[in-house]
């Protein structure tokens, strides 16, 4: 473990963006995660984003096999993983080639020169060696023969094969970056001790290489100074770094515990939602029943069955899976059972861009079913608040007896950020509509007068035997009814039930300005990008730009129109072709509304947003 730093000039920075890139097998995700965890523990605010190929083991050295991990750390509030990077660590030519455009001119690139062989250069489609042909002269390039130095470091450690030796070179890079940013290696050494408990030679090897990298950077004259980033001002409490998908899974676990119900997950593997299934299957100790079904349809239908039988039922999916679940979701809405559908949006249509992010399932979520079949639609907006909105989805579905679609997306689902841990004890109460005893006037479609939620009578309860189904039902008994007036009444009441939710959800608020020239509107996973762009403009004197971000989409918050009308112009920013803008136009007349859309499978960049907003207010 190394913590001391001596005799070096330090420059204080507010924030820095670092990207680690290499082959799929180079351990870049691990390197990035270690750096972000260490920084978070140091007290920095962080946001991370992994970026890896759809191919699991792409050919070594190829351009499309590059795996990357970006981390943004700061002493100030960090809300996105950032756009262009201050430091690029490239473990091979392909990584350099595919990521060079992201490096800010004049900033630093560390390369493993040992990997710049003729063969690798050809694979990366370089005609000449970029380290020699002058093409990198606008950057500060630090050339390190990392592979040889790693081998040299480990020459005396016994019990290691060649592969383990070369594979630990990522720790050399990490050690260097730790020194550069004044970080202790403590957390990572602890990590080795835990991870390689039964393989002491790997603990020794990795620790040695990590330290070697650290000392190498310290003595290297090519690195003139190191940087320091002070801890950020964050609310006091206990934190951990959490990925959006994990936060979603944990929010559901918390809701199950709070509500006293068992958690049932019916799911089918699909990118990028599968990590929620991976997380929930681990938690049998909490009584979680996670059922990997034969297809998306069985995923949701098994959840509907579990809900009928009294579990808190969940199904998780991504875009194409939601399409497959449509009919069954209509059934859940019709029989008015609690059900949470988590849709981790990805690039569409069809198979689209499975590993990339997009917000293009909004209209599918709102309308993608036959007949008049409204459901609650809410959206999480940061990796950490996936926890809160998953919890909220469960709470709403149990209290209002209608399915809830929770939208997240690939960007926040795979991204990670500090999460101030919330104890279940401090979470809001979750009521339910379970009836446990028969009384004379009991009917399955008796409703709560305020919420319009129907009774939830669970098999095993004597005297409450009843049948439900997809056919239209009588407004009281739930028996099949073809009576025309009854059908219209039921259509209206199922819709009214959603509308009534407006009395239970928070009002829409704005940040930076309550009225003014321009209201920037977003929803879901774009919060970080939009928030930081408006904040930046606000700090630069653009005080008439406000920002409103939606987490509740169906129904919209009650005061939406009133908030919107406080601004001369509105710009709705979405990673789709304008779906939420359509929803707003449909609901409210006379809005001076423009759109800013991006559909490239990528999040918004900071400068494209600020330029657009400036243009709109000037």
């Amino acid at each position: 473990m190394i913590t001391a730093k001596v005799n070096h000039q330090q420059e204080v920075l507010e924030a820095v963006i670092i990207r680690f890139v290499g082959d799929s097998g180079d351990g870049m995700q691990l390197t990035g995660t270690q750096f972000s965890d260490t920084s978070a523990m140091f007290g920095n605010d962080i946001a991370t984003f992994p970026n890896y190929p759809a191919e699991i083991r792409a050919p070594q050295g190829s351009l499309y096999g590059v795996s990357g991990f970006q981390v943004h750390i700061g002493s100030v509030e960090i809300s996105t993983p950032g756009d262009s990077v201050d430091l690029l660590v490239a473990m091979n030519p392909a990584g350099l080639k595919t990521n060079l455009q992201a490096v800010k001119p004049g900033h630093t690139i560390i390369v493993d020169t040992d990997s710049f062989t003729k063969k690798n250069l050809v694979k990366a489609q370089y005609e000449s060696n970029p380290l020699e042909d002058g093409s990198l002269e606008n950057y500060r390039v630090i050339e390190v023969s990392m592979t040889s130095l790693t081998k040299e470091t480990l020459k005396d450690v016994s019990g290691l094969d060649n592969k383990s030796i070369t594979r630990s070179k990522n720790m050399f890079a990490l050690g260097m970056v730790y020194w550069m940013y004044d970080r202790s290696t403590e957390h990572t050494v602890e990590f080795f001790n835990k991870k390689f408990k039964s393989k002491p030679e790997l603990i020794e090897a990795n620790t040695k290489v990590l330290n070697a990298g650290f000392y190498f950077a310290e003595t290297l004259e090519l690195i003139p100074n190191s940087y320091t980033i002070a801890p950020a001002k964050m609310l006091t409490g206990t934190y951990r770094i959490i990925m959006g998908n994990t936060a979603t899974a944990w929010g559901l676990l918390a809701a199950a515990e709070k509500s006293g119900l068992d958690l049932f997950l019916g799911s089918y593997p699909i990118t990028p939602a599968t990590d929620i299934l991976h997380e929930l299957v681990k938690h049998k100790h909490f009584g979680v029943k996670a059922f990997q079904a034969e297809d998306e349809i069985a995923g949701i239908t098994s959840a509907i069955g579990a809900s009928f039988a009294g579990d808190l039922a969940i199904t998780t999916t991504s875009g194409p899976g939601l399409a497959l679940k449509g009919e069954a979701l209509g059934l859940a809405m019709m029989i008015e059972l609690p059900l949470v559908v988590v849709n981790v949006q990805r690039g569409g249509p069809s198979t689209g861009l499975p590993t990339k992010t997009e917000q293009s399932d909004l209209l599918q979520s709102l309308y993608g079913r036959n007949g008049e079949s409204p459901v609650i639609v809410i959206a999480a907006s940061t990796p950490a608040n996936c926890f809160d909105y998953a919890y909220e989805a469960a709470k709403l579905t149990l209290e209002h007896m209608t399915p809830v679609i929770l939208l997240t997306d690939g960007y926040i689902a795979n991204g990670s950020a500090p999460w101030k841990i919330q104890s279940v004890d401090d979470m809001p109460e979750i009521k339910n509509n379970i009836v446990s005893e028969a009384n004379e006037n009991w009917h399955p479609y008796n409703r709560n007068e305020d919420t319009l939620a129907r009774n939830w009578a669970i098999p095993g309860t004597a005297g409450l035997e009843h049948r439900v189904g997809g056919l239209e039902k009588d407004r009281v008994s739930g028996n099949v009814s073809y009576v025309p007036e009854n059908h219209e009444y039921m259509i209206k009441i199922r819709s009214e039930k959603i509308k009534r939710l407006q009395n239970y959800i928070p009002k829409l608020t704005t940040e930076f300005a309550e009225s003014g020239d321009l209201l920037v509107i977003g929803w879901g996973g774009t919060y970080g990008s939009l928030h930081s762009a408006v904040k930046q403009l606000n700090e630069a004197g653009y005080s008439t730009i406000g920002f409103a971000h939606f987490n509740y989409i169906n129904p919209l918050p009650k005061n939406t129109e009133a908030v919107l009308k406080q601004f001369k112009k509105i710009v709705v920013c979405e990673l789709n072709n304008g779906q939420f803008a359509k929803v707003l136009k449909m609901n409210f007349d006379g809005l001076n509304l423009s759109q800013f859309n991006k559909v490239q499978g990528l999040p918004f960049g900071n400068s494209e947003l600020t330029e657009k907003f400036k243009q709109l207010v000037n």
Partner: protein
Amino acid sequence: METTVVKEYTFKDFTSDQEVRWCPGCDDYVILRAMQKALPKMGVKREDVVFVSGIGCSSRFPYYIDSYGIHSIHGRAPGIASGVKLANPNLSVWVITGDGDALAIGGNHFIHVLRRNIDLNIILFNNEIYGLTKGQFSPTSLVGQKTKSSPYGNTQPPFSPGELAIGAQARFFARIGGNTPKEMTQLFIEAEKFKGTSLIEILQNCPIFNDGCFTQYTSKAVREDKQLNVEHGKPMIFGKEQDKGLVLNGLKLEVVTIGENGITENDILVHDAKEQDTTLHQMLVRLQYPMVTGIIRSFDDATLEEREDALTAEVKANSKFTKTDDLFFSGGTYKVE
């Protein structure tokens, strides 16, 4: 084991107040009544019974039974029933389905529910036709069969439900004619007793769109000569005179007459429903003459719930987590002060 006192029920306790709306003369009435008579004899409480159906004529069934029920969507009853059972393994869960529902639109769920062996009972009403949509060929319709969607004759070869089911690892498969209520009642009770997924194929006549589809096997006049009702541990003998039986000839089953060519009862194959190997069961399922009815396969195996329960108990015993707080505050946490 906890002993529960189950009240004495009659078929009336399982009859709902809903008017039954099948066509006059439909075998579905027979099946419904057989079920209403079987349920009181199963030793299960009414509130613990759940019927789940898909879409089709047969799928109206749950409305007519006074228990818990879901009339769901086309082909998806096995998924819903699986969820019900996994959520509460104490329930007696029944899937009501038809040949179109189970073998066409729900084919994927049908094979997978059998493979998993969840303790469910599936009643497959096979009438070799789509009834509710008014007469199109189904996945069990015969080649050449003229229907509304095959006016010149069906060109799609059929599934044999039993063959498909056993191929999909069904542990329990039985078949019965739709006009034998007493035997049917008994079969339903056997299906409930079996731990695992039990599948019963009912050869059900559709008097409107496919009248007489099974008459050649099921009519009273020919039944005894054309059907072989197998029983575990008993020789496979049939015929009005109880003089016909099955023997293995090479790799094929052959019908022989006892008393002819030196054949005695001892030469006749004895039915072993509990055998794990499916070879003979598949041969029995495929026979056209005689049409084999009764419990053809009843192989005891662990259910999915049992496997899951064992795993859960093991995980719980070894876990340090009892509340979510234990998980949330474990591992790589840090304090901001």
